């Protein structure tokens, strides 16, 4: 029977270099079981118990039931010794985890053996999994998989293309390619061996010499097109080769992520099993923290006119209740391009040419159907560890652009209010140059779509970078940096109530400054700047510091300029919105991008 089954979800083991948190893979009784990294097996003593109701090894039965063609679910287990195997389903109601024991089997074998069990399906279960209890000493669990007996004729053909846009992140990209090669492409019976291609757009033009030639990897180098240009180039290349290699899906993928290649196999089988009506849905990868592999940043997000709300944030994926909560459906408006699997249907449009940041948001807002699965994820460095002062320009400008296209309820007044809030915050935290960049972003938005399209590029990025504040190594920042003070401000506890906050900030601004503070580079609280003369903004990841000082004159100039830009925004927002809406179809067409990327008529 097992020959007729398709292994749609292999049970995963912790992998050094990717994630080694056992509780993401299985939960075991350490007194009677043992597991060591590097040995894909669990050793049991009598009564030793292991549960597989974990983020990577539970099966999202409700999602599969909803989206995939109907089929029976089975569990395949490889073992040696004597076990009781319990098949368990889990439901989640009002914060409580409700387990159902679906079936219990006893198995025994002196040698390595493989056995298959059928799951009795229960509608109310969100996930199902199993537990193994050893019935004697020296029993060993060697692995397994969830299987289905779906009719292959009902399953669609799928070919995956990874669309990676990179800029000087060789270490990550090379590691991803190495893993793909070792775990997927070099394995003779890997289901993805002939169904995966990698398209890399190298914006830094530094990667190509470092990559060994692999038949399933294509690299193009280009310069000065930003991430939007990079991903767009990748999309064009993939669309061109789709017919030749049978590619049906493209996965937008960041260059600085950590990927477990075995996740792509799950993705592949899930996409193959999709019902016809869901084949144009986007499969989003959940975002986990690189430094805390068990912690989820988000599973999709809501744009909310720029006041982004992450979906399912800060879940601890070692906890069963959080895993179940993660299965609950929630409104998602966009999916970041760390892992965004998009079907290559006929009228798929290209990204909006906004150079950098928010291209993924805009892309998501036009395709609002997303699916998320536990276990389909990537790890990415925390946003707070990548502070780049130039971002504020693009974030401000592109936010207004995205809103003008997709948020009809957003107007000039709202834009002015949001800008004021952000600029004042920057001024209060002594980040005057960033405040200037914000104002410039808003002013540039007011210049209209044609101006942005004509001027956006590497030259502008370079100019902004020259203008942006510079961080210096900690050792060169001069006296006054205090690591203890930094840590106090890092875990900032509000000093005053929300009610008194504005008065407190205002007083801090008006009274003579006298203190020196060390604060985090990423989003410091204005509370920390009360009467502060000099500040060290510390970026812990690069161990660099931005040194700022309170400048009253500069602040006042900034506030005057803010008023001017606010007025401009209120006046021009509606007109610029019209321009973006009118040009949208053209800007997101292949024709536009081919011209912009200078691919020329003889491009093949």
């Amino acid at each position, binding site marked *: 029977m097992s020959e007729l089954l398709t292994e749609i979800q292999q049970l995963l083991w*912790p992998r*050094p*270099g990717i994630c*080694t948190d056992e509780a993401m893979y299985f939960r075991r009784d*350490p*007194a009677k079981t*043992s597991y*060591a*990294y*590097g*040995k894909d097996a669990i050793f049991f003593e009598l009564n030793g118990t292991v549960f597989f109701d974990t983020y990577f090894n539970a099966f999202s039965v409700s999602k599969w039931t909803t989206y995939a063609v109907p089929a029976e679910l089975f569990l395949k287990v490889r073992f040696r010794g004597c076990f009781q195997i319990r098949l368990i389903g889990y439901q989640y109601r009002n914060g409580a985890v409700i387990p159902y024991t679906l079936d219990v089997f006893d198995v025994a074998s002196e040698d390595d053996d493989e056995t298959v069990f059928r799951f009795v399906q229960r509608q109310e279960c969100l996930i199902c999994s199993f537990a193994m209890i050893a019935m004697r000493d020296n029993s060993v669990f060697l692995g397994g998989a969830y299987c289905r007996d779906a009719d292959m004729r009902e399953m669609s053909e799928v070919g995956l293309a990874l669309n990676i846009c990179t800029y000087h992140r060789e*270490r990550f990209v090379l*590691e991803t390619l190495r893993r793909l090669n070792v775990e997927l492409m070099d394995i003779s019976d890997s289901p993805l061996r002939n169904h995966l291609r990698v398209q890399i757009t190298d914006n830094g033009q530094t990667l190509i010499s470092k990559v060994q030639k692999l038949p399933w990897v294509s690299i193009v180098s280009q310069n000065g097109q930003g991430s939007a240009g990079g991903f767009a180039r990748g999309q064009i290349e993939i669309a061109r080769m789709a017919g030749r290699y049978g590619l049906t899906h493209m996965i937008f993928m960041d260059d600085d992520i950590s990927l477990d290649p075995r996740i792509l196999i799950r993705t592949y089988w899930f996409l193959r099993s999709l019902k016809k009506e869901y084949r144009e849905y986007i499969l989003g990868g959940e975002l986990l923290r690189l*430094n*805390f592999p068990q912690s989820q940043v988000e599973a999709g997000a809501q744009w909310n006119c720029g006041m982004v709300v992450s979906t399912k944030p800060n879940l601890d994926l070692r906890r069963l209740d959080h895993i179940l909560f993660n299965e609950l459906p929630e409104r998602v408006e966009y999916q970041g391009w760390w892992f965004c699997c998009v079907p290559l249907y006929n009228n798929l449009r290209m990204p909006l040419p906004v150079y950098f940041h928010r291209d993924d948001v805009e892309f998501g807002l036009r395709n609002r159907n997303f699916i998320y699965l536990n276990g389909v994820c990537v790890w990415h460095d*925390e946003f*707070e*560890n990548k502070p780049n002062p130039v971002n504020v320009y693009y974030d401000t400008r592109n936010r207004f652009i995205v809103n003008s296209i997709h948020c009809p309820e957003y107007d000039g007044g709202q834009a002015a209010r949001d800008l004021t809030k952000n600029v004042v915050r920057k001024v209060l935290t002594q980040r005057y140059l960033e405040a200037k960049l914000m104002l410039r972003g808003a002013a540039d938005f007011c210049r209209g779509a044609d101006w942005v399209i004509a001027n956006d590029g590497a030259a502008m990025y370079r100019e902004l970078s020259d203008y942006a504040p510079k961080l210096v*190594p*900690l*050792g*060169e*920042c*001069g*006296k006054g*940096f205090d*690591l203890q003070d930094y*840590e106090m401000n*890092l*875990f900032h506890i509000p000093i005053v109530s929300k009610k008194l906050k504005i008065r407190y900030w205002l007083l801090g601004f008006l009274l003579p400054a006298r203190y020196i503070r060390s604060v*985090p580079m990423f989003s410091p609280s204005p509370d920390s700047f009360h009467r502060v003369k000099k500040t060290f903004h510390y970026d*812990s*990841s690069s*161990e660099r510091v931005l040194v700022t000082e309170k400048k009253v004159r500069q602040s006042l100039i900034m506030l005057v300029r803010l008023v001017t830009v606010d007025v401009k925004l209120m006046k021009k927002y509606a007109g610029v919105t019209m321009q973006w809406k009118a040009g949208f179809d053209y800007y997101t067409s292949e024709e536009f991008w081919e011209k912009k990327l200078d691919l020329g008529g003889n491009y093949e």
Partner: protein
Amino acid sequence: MIKIQSIVFPKSGICYVPDMCYRLVSVPQKEHTPYHFDAAGQCLIVDQGGIVFFDTYFNGLSVGKWKKYTSVTGFALSLDILGSFSVSLLHTKYINGVTVQKVLSAEVVEAHERKTVIFPFPDCEAVGAISFRVDSLEDGGVLFGGGYYAEAWEQVPRDIELALNFCNYEREEYIYRNMDNIRRYILDDPTCELREHLQIFVADNSRTVDPARLPENRSHVFPQGDFGGAGGFTRGLMEVLRDKDRFGLTHAVMLDDDILLEPESLVRLFAFLRFMRPEHWKAFVGGALLRMDHQYIQVCQGGEWDQDNYYVFHKEGADLTRLRDVLLNEIENGAKINGWWFHCIPLLDISLDDLPYPFFFHMDDVEFDLRNCRQVIHMNGICTWHEPFEYKPGSHLFYYNNRNTLITHMLHFPEYDAKRAKAFLTEALIPLVFTYRYKEADLVMRGIEDAMRGPNWLVTQDPEALLEDVLSQGYKKQELDALPMRLDYGRYMEKYNEAVFDQPVETKRHRFWRRLCLNGYLGKAKRDVIVSMYFLKIRSVYRAKRVLNYDPVSERGFVTEKSYKELFRLFKRYLGVRRLLSRRFKKARQEYLDAFPSMTNSTFWYQYLGVTQEREGGAGV
């Protein structure tokens, strides 16, 4: 592959703090502990289920610094083991207030007989530290040791010859102990590459070092009179520079006499210097200062000198058994100076014209670094243990510290003026006057007055006679029996906690009244208090009549008493010193600056030390 760091186990006689070497994970489900450390055999026995982390102060490898400062591009771990283990290679960093640890790779190894296994480290971020953990998969697994190796490098390792420069004054027993350790762990170890690249120089200010007790064929002893730390270190440095070509010396390591040295620190220093990139060849390498009593507590890892805040210690009080503090140590926050308890000076740019200033005692290292050092690199595992400063209180320090600080400020801070000097004087006097340490207040003022006499006065003094005179002017510690006050240890501890831990916290109202009545000067003194000789807070002496200043190390003390007469006398002298500063400061500064080159060259120093330029001494062994 070249070994750059050995796995360190606790060593009796040097440092027996296991948590500085490894962390044992408790296994509650086991009846007996699965760990046994064999101190004599220097091996760790781990039974099945035992997990040992080596992400510690001595056994992590500072990968961030190795990648930043050296040409090494690949690292490997070598383990000498017996039994079945799962070995995981780790990368650990401290970021945004949290410790982040990642398993880079893992491998199960089975050694049925003792063998050495190599584990190459995958590429990782250039921050924090790399290390490893072992999980024992069967009973009786033994870890004999091992080390980290450089597996790949971009530039050929350069030749390094280290000269250890000890300055001794009646601390020869410490020196012999360190020499025994160096002999045992470096010179007698045929696998240690440093053994052929080490010379030992001892400037013996007390003429008490027996050259026969130092390692043969590489020790050079220079007996001389008591010229203080400055005279001793300078003599050693001069001799090192003179022998630079003869032995091919590249670095001098300044070492205090009363330290306890972990020989592995020297081995690591040697390996680090070998691979250092050329652009960092002029960088100094500082050893962290650890407490001799609580060996896991760091006094400082370098620091910086500030004309307002003086010596600012970096990473002060770190508990080196805690992973967080070990990783915090990896963050470089711009250390500019390092004391001469362990300070490695490259001889590339140092000549016989760049010698220390003749301060006699204290501040010689600070002044030297302010002048010559642009960058100090520190690394976990490069350290030394030293008696805590509070164990060596003495009135004479007030004279030398204040005098030499003022001279250093005049020499190196052009913006330092008479006004700041007056503020410095006031700041130094206030705690002494309000704690009735009138003699020490006198010494502070004498130090300032002497500094104003200019460099000619400084060099014409007989340093030993001056020290005698200063000592005679200060307080003399006496046996407790001879004192008019009885030691009550409970009361002493109350004041100690008040001074060190600020417990109990003084209320604002109390502080206001205390300050209003000049800490009790404007009121009746009615009680006796017992305070620490070193740690003392003004508020501890509030309205006290007599104060017993107790030194718990020597178990002796002295008594001071409230005196209006002394107060007014000191005030009068204080006004005089202020006037002197107003009158003399500018001129004195110019004199110091003018005379400076002639006071830091070898001609001056030979004359000052009373030795001829022909080699004297050094013939020891």
